[in-house]
């Protein structure tokens, strides 16, 4: 009712107004790809906004996770269920660093665990070379809070999930948003400049963001083009 009235009013106000067409082609922006190798550019951009990033091989993943956990001085961690093929090696790495993985049944316990954990480990649907961003989705096999509440966020992402720029990302995003209830583009650590325009890292979200890019050019080249593992069917 209120909707019909509202829309009728808008329609009436716009009667006779010609809409210019949407641009056929969009111009390049600072967030467009520039032809450079994706992993290299991703790493450079993420570092420039205060994030940490390493390119690792699949066999080297456990070691890299352990090193990252030690650097974070983490004693506890939550692990989101979207690590797919990486979950075994991530668990191994955390064990090696002596990190206790907090287990939780149900939403209240999960929230508590995320709030208590020193470290949140998640997968990602995609990474954007031009901006050093990762895409984290929320669905039955992933978590919104694991990348948000802990002070340290460790994300694991295959290099085959990298796209050059926003144009490619926003072409894929509608597909992700069909499968998932929400998604967020995360670009480095949480930040503010609200006090005298001094940049401070770590406001409400994580103070540190560390991305492990798993080289999939050799071991995982067959996976290219397949939908991400995390996009599994809901239970």
């Amino acid at each position, binding site marked *: 009712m209120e909707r019909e009235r*509202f829309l009728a009013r808008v329609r009436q106000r*716009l*009667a006779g107004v010609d809409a210019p067409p949407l641009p056929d082609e969009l*111009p390049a922006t600072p967030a467009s790809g520039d032809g450079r190798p994706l992993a290299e550019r991703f790493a450079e951009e993420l570092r420039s906004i205060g994030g940490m990033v390493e390119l690792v091989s699949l066999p080297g993943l456990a070691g890299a996770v352990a090193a990252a956990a030690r650097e974070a001085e983490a004693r506890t961690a939550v692990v989101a269920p979207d690590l797919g093929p990486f979950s075994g090696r991530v668990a191994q790495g955390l064990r090696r660093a002596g990190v206790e993985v907090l287990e939780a049944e149900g939403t209240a316990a999960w929230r508590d665990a995320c709030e208590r954990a020193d470290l949140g480990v998640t997968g990602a649907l995609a990474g954007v070379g031009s901006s050093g961003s990762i895409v984290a989705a929320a669905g*039955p096999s992933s978590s919104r809070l694991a990348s948000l509440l802990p002070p340290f966020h460790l994300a694991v992402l295959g290099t085959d999930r990298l796209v050059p720029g926003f144009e490619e990302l926003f072409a894929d995003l509608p597909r992700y948003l069909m499968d998932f*209830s929400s998604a967020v583009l995360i670009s480095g650590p949480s930040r503010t400049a609200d006090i005298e325009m001094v940049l401070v890292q770590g406001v409400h979200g994580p103070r540190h963001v560390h991305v492990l890019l798993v080289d999939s050019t050799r071991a995982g080249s067959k996976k290219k083009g397949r939908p991400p593992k995390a996009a599994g069917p809901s239970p």
Partner: protein
Amino acid sequence: MDTVLERRAAAFEGYDLEAMRRAGEAIRAHTVARLDEYLERFADRAEERGINVFFADTAAEAVDYVRRILDRRGVRLVTKGKSMISEEIGLNHTLEAAGIEVVETDLGEYIVQLARETPSHILMPAMHKSRADVAETFSAVTGETLSDDPAMLTAFSRRILRDKFLTAGAGITGANFGVADNGTVVLVTNEGNGRMCSTLPPVHIALMGMERLVPSTRELAVLLPLLTGSGTGQRVSTYVSFLGGPRRMGELDGPEETHVVVVDNGRSAILSTEFRSALHCIRCGACQNVCPVFRQVGGHAYGGTYGGPIGAVLTPLLAGFARAGDLPHASSLCAACTEVCPVRIPLHDQLLALRRDVAKERAPRGERLSFRLWSAAWRTPRRFLLFARLARLLQTPLTLGGRRLRRAPFPLSRWTRGRDLPALASRTFRERWRRR
């Protein structure tokens, strides 16, 4: 402020900013001109996702709707992300009057709220506060004395506000964009408070001005870099959330129910006017940063929710000339705002057009008559000469041959009471030129 301008310049260096601006303008113009279709599509898709969509004609309807949700859920504490539209509709005030605690969670907004003030800038709400001011304000919260180190002060707000997020019954945020094709609400933040507000509390409500739509995510490839580059000089904000409804079966976290309130509050009346492009605004704040008037007087001086050039255009249109008709005059018409606007809104042209409309509605009959006579007297060279001669003749009893006019009969006396008027010369320039 200059730092922001430098960062903006650096952000777009090496790119064809003009092409980006033209694309931004075309996208916004297209969407707003077909707003009815896109609103309908957005609402359909959002509802399919399980989002409750409410269309509010007025500020009061929007506030009422929010209150009904909060009452039904028995909410006593609300955490809020930065939302200009919530300021526009006076949400906090009403909720607080109903005994609901409302906590602003954007650091700048939190500072301003604790100090019992209002935001002074779209993106930097507390830009009028020094670090010492902030330390003092925060110290008053707990009684402990805090240092004025921005990092320490930020850590303090993280600690205090984390507790609020975890206990709030509802989170309320604004919306940077609504995507018509898939019904998601896009929220752009750096601090993460938008994610908190839309994830932790069991209820999330997004307030969205009805013009905030984009047809699809494709257009965001241009609009997002324009927004963040113009606003803060960043390539991308830390978080760009695509909020697509409540937690689904089997999900570990997320809100139980979500709402989008689409607010008109005077906007539809602008659609059929020459000011329609004011609704293209994506709220980057760039026009404020470059405006010589805004930089001198600050956001509070504008009296409304939106300060600076865009505020001087929007506020009179939304709140009426009686309340805000003076604002279009708060400009030197230097056009810096028009040049910087990422979606090419002709702000200074609109300010001028608004002055015309305000004058039409407001000027007393006497004033209008005298200006008409004035313009008649000057319209042709012949008339000008005639009236110059006449005025020269008429002034003699007042100047008594002197070079200044110190006293004059009403209504000129209103002027001469405060200052002298230089007398007209005995010969005009053209007369002197001819007799040279």
